[in-house]
């Protein structure tokens, strides 16, 4: 995947409450918000904590470790410009800290299984946009 062409693509908007996520990614980390009021860890970024509705949060670096919840192989192009070229593998990954995120997996499908352990690296798929790509550990 690292060798695929880097094509312009509509990424999530950078807003005041999402900026920290993207900064963390540039630094090679998956970051989540930890609620300052109740301690709940959430990802993707949101303005409010879903548990206590506080808008105060701090960024915490996650371990980058997780496990496979499930995966699919997308065979159709859904976007005119996308950094992934079909067929591509995309997984739902349960991070060790709790959140369920979608991400690319750099592995053959034959080696995947629900619950298998993964570790993320952050890859620049478009200028300034670093996305997690998981490898089997």
């Amino acid at each position, binding site marked *: 995947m690292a060798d695929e062409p880097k094509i312009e693509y509509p990424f*999530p908007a950078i807003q005041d409450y999402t900026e920290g996520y993207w900064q963390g990614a540039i630094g090679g980390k998956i970051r989540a918000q930890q609620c300052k009021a109740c301690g709940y860890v959430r990802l993707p970024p949101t303005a409010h904590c879903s548990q206590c509705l506080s808008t105060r949060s701090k960024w915490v670096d996650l371990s980058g470790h997780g496990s496979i919840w*499930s995966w*699919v*192989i*997308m*065979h159709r192009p*859904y976007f005119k410009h996308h950094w992934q070229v079909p*067929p591509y593998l995309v997984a*739902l990954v349960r991070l060790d800290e709790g959140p369920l*995120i979608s991400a690319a997996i750099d592995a053959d499908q034959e080696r995947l299984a629900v619950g298998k352990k993964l570790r993320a690296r952050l890859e620049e798929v478009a200028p300034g946009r670093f996305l997690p790509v998981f490898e089997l550990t």
Partner: protein
Amino acid sequence: MMNRKNVAIVGVGTTHFADLYAKRDPARDEYGLAADAFALALADSGLEKSKIDGLICIRIPSYSAMASYLGMPHLRFVNSLEAAGRMAALAIQYAQLLIEAGAAETIAIVYGNVGRSASASYGGAFNTKSINAYDAMNGLTSPGAFLAAHFQRHAALYGTTTDALGRVAINNRRNATLNPAAVFREPITLDDYMSAPFIAEPLRRLDYCLINDGGVAFVLTSAERAQDLKSDPVFISPVVTTTDLSFRYVSEDGFYSAAQRVAQQLHCATGIKAGDVDILQVYDNFTPVVLLSLEGFGYCPLGEAGAWVAENLGDLPKVSLNSSGGHTSEGYMQGFALIAEGARQIRGTAGDRQKAGAQLAQYMCLSPIVGSFYLSLENRWS
């Protein structure tokens, strides 16, 4: 059980989905399709249009324009629901509750869909400011992709194979051969299924609902008023709904516990068990949803839907499931046509596909809003 006013479907109308599919027309609109279906439902009920005092619109751009189009400017109740399959059970539930509460006495539910003529598509589009953008950036945007992930998980946990999905698709198609209004009526084999291209692997094209044009309408009223009408009223059990909501089309347990809650509440309210049902109308935007529904609504234990399908939906099916062809063959009317078919089977008016002696139908929708209810000619839920 509380003292309830029973509510019945007294009019059913559906457009001819196959004819509409054959003649794509960019000028076609939802109002016209909904009106075609409504005219049929109204005629079926034998009611004067002036008796309709409530209107629920689904997938219609404007309820105001719809009411005007139908010449019903003075209603006691009107509103619109979003264009989503999970709305079908809710529309019936709202009509039931409104009639029970006396907010309206006779309600029309009208649904219109120009998906094919308007070139509707699912997947791809996303709002870059929404939380869904974090899935879309990885190329995961469509409900089909999320259902594919649920099936992959089911396969991993319980050994379910895509053969089971194929059987569901084949069963739908076999049923559609007996339905002149169904869009796809050519029988398919397991080989046909397996050679269809992957869309979101492990799902193939034949696991996906159609995108087509059509309208569906119902007229519902109280049991009291239904007595005087010419056609057989189809009584509705309490409609039970619950939710398992997330910003994406994902449920930790594949909506199993949500469907179990609905099944248990329905059982408590009616005393009916899965084995009592003659006609299973199962929401099937994608074939895996049928498997998840059979487990969630108690037709088989968790993880055993593959075996259930092999046993009951073989070449000579033991169970009537999606008797008009379902969303993969009849057409994708987002649950509404499945409910229409349930009512027709119970009335004995389903033509060549009529199941002899059908007395009890169940509509089941497993989705972020799970909903289910029974249909019967017997006024058994007062």
